[in-house]
């Protein structure tokens, strides 16, 4: 009867390290994602060491205005004689910080709204989704400009503006996940056992929805950096903080005489956003392996 009696699975439950390794292998199968991760790490390192390699205020004058790149200053100086590279290094801090904080705020708030709407349904769902729709009908960048203009430009107001325009997409995503999860039998089993709702939401459903949230969140960081750059470009950035968008804006009038002032910060934005998108793709592949197999 050996064939009919069920045998216990052999082997130990995979420990954390083995699981991390397995996850890395899945992630590393997507080569562009590894490249993206390398660029991203480069940007993070640059942001981390910015105060060490450029201890001076990036707004301070470094030398002759509009010095061409690859001379005394690797990326030249701008119209007021500020070192472009120092601006990029310090701007990386601003961009990453704003991108991360705004995303965290948007993810937490969006997840909360989506979870409540998806789990409870009915009038709660209707109410929350109508609110979400109000936010979604306003073009996000225009809305962000409006918010910053009302609140007066500062790091806080920019973060709030970005979070406010970003959460609705996450709320919809999480709501969809919750809708499909709440009818799963393991969730129903918890209901039958009288487990309180908050526990079901937090312990049973949320961990099973995290993969798409992580992926969407990572892509949101890229969008947040873009919005921040756009706001700074329009002069709505925090006047006391160096940022890539501000640099591009400052060099825009002299683009034909001093191309480097706009170009290098622009390339920094491009590379960072690209890298984050690639990493997001890689995370998507690694967290939803079945999806990838279907593709290839």
């Amino acid at each position, binding site marked *: 009867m050996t064939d*009919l009696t*069920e045998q216990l699975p052999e082997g130990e439950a995979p420990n954390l390290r083995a699981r991390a390794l397995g996850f890395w292998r899945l992630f590393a199968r997507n080569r562009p994602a590894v490249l993206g991760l390398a660029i991203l790490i480069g940007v993070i390192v640059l942001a981390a060491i910015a105060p060490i390699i450029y201890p001076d205020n990036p707004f301070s004058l470094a030398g002759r205005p509009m010095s061409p790149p690859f001379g005394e200053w690797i990326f030249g100086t701008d119209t007021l004689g500020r070192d472009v590279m120092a601006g990029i290094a310090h701007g990386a801090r601003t961009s990453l910080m704003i991108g991360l904080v705004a995303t965290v705020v948007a993810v937490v708030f969006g997840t909360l709204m989506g979870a409540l709407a998806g789990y409870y349904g009915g009038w709660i769902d209707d109410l929350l989704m109508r609110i979400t729709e109000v936010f979604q009908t306003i073009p996000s960048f225009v809305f962000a400009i409006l918010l910053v203009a009302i609140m007066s430009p500062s790091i806080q107001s920019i973060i709030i503006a970005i979070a406010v325009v970003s959460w609705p997409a996450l709320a919809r995503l999480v709501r969809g996940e919750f809708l499909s999860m709440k009818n799963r*039998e393991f969730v129903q*089993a918890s209901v*039958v056992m*009288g487990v309180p709702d908050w526990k079901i939401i937090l312990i049973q459903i949320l961990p*099973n929805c995290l993969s798409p949230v992580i992926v969407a969140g990572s892509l949101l960081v890229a969008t947040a950096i873009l919005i921040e750059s756009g706001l700074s470009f329009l002069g709505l950035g925090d006047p006391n903080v160096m940022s890539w968008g501000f640099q591009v804006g400052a060099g825009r009038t002299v683009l034909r005489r001093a191309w480097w002032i706009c170009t290098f910060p622009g390339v920094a934005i491009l590379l960072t956003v690209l890298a984050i998108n690639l990493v997001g793709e890689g995370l998507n592949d690694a967290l939803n392996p079945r999806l990838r197999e279907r593709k290839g």
Partner: protein
Amino acid sequence: MTAPLVDIRNLHVALPDGADRPYAVEDLSMTLNAGEIVCVVGESGSGKSLTARAMMGLLPEPRVRASAGQIIFGGRDLLQLPKHERRLLCGEQLSMIFQEPMTALNPLMTVGRQIEEVLIVHTSLSAAERMERVLALLAEVHLPDPPRIAASYPHQLSGGQRQRAMIAMALIMDPKVLVADEPTTALDVTTQAQILKLIRELQHLHGTGVMFITHDFGVVAEVADRILVMQHGKVVETGTADQILNRPEAPYTRALIRAIPSLTPRSRTPIEGVPILKVEDLDKTYRQSGLLAKGREVHAAKDVSFTLKRGETIGIVGESGSGKSTVARMIVRLLQPDGGRIDLHGIDLAPLSKRQLKPHRRRVQMVFQDPYASLNPRRKIGEIICEGPVANGVPKSKAMARARELLGLVGLKPEVAERFPHEFSGGQRQRIGLARALAMDPEVLVADEPVSALDVSVQAQVLELLAEIRDRLGLSVVFITHDLRVAAQVCDTIVVMSKGEVVEHGTLAEVFADPKHAYTRELLASIPGKDWQIPELAEAGAV
């Protein structure tokens, strides 16, 4: 005797590296003659479906491929044919019916157009001739009003009608060989009986050779001329239907046949206990509400009443859409009944609010159908079982100790509490689901199709366990099932439901021996393999 229609010789289907075995199908040889039905039987993972797919050239290559052997058809080896020639052959001389007609048909094309498509590809008939053929064939598969069916989209047809349309599509070119991969598994038992009859009839009429893939020995007994039993990718036994069904040789076949629940009701002493659960006039209507449009109403349950005594098992039997699951869900209050009483020891659970219900939740617990969806993949087994007791105020350490004890009770090692659900097979997961329900110390267990997703051998073990635990703990069970064989083995009384209403209610023996309602009679007559007396097989010592 003439040469066989299809001659499969030493077929090997290789699995990708890292799979649990090197070959999905290993050294399979079989023949198929014109005008006969060969059933390939096996449990999940036996390689039966991949055999069918190898024949049709539908293997998910290159990851899974036919690595050795021959499939000779019309003097040529199908595995060596160039792709385009093989494709032409498929549909014209070889064709296939799939398990799930809803996914096998294109939802955006009318049924008639899809069948016609085959004719466009393979023939040069004019549009009028094609339509004539399509309509003639739809009539041949006994679809009512062929012109209307031809103009319908798949979602407008019932499951049985879709499967008939699929069969029409498969037969339009009058193929020599028909491969049917579990063609009736997704269908209700009465529809299944009709489709099996249809396949037999058409196969007789056209002299088609049919390779019929199934896991269900009842279906085998209905249709098979010859049988091939597979296990782990290998053929364990072949022979005529009579040989295999009545005098099986191989230990595996014997064990499989022994595991089939018999239709003869198991005699249990009548339950004399006190009524514990009284369900009275339970109602549930689903309303599709739109903002502007008037909603559609479906009566999922209408005036459902029954009484459950202590220690008794009541079976709620019916086909899909009969409302049996709705009733189960109302009893555990996953659904709010629209009307009626759920009287548990004199307390009516039906109108209670969530908060009022909480102290009573414990007493009615549920075992779910899908062993893969019913356990949270991210939590350890121990945590899963403890969750309910902890939420009801039992200290964690005490709940954990109880969980280990329960795992022992359901036949698993206590150590598995530290593992995750994905490490377990379907049957083991169902045991864990049972342990989870038992952790609440329930008085009534509601089991919603607890074995329908399991292989027959595992099914027998889980049913046995359920009966044993019921008797040991004095539980009362509401057992939802579509399978009358299973019902015959575990239930004391039976409630037959159809379209939301109870059509018959009585003890198991009464209902089986003397069904009163026409629907019950039809249900009983549709059980596949009902005329086959399952042989009494001694449990061989060497097995």
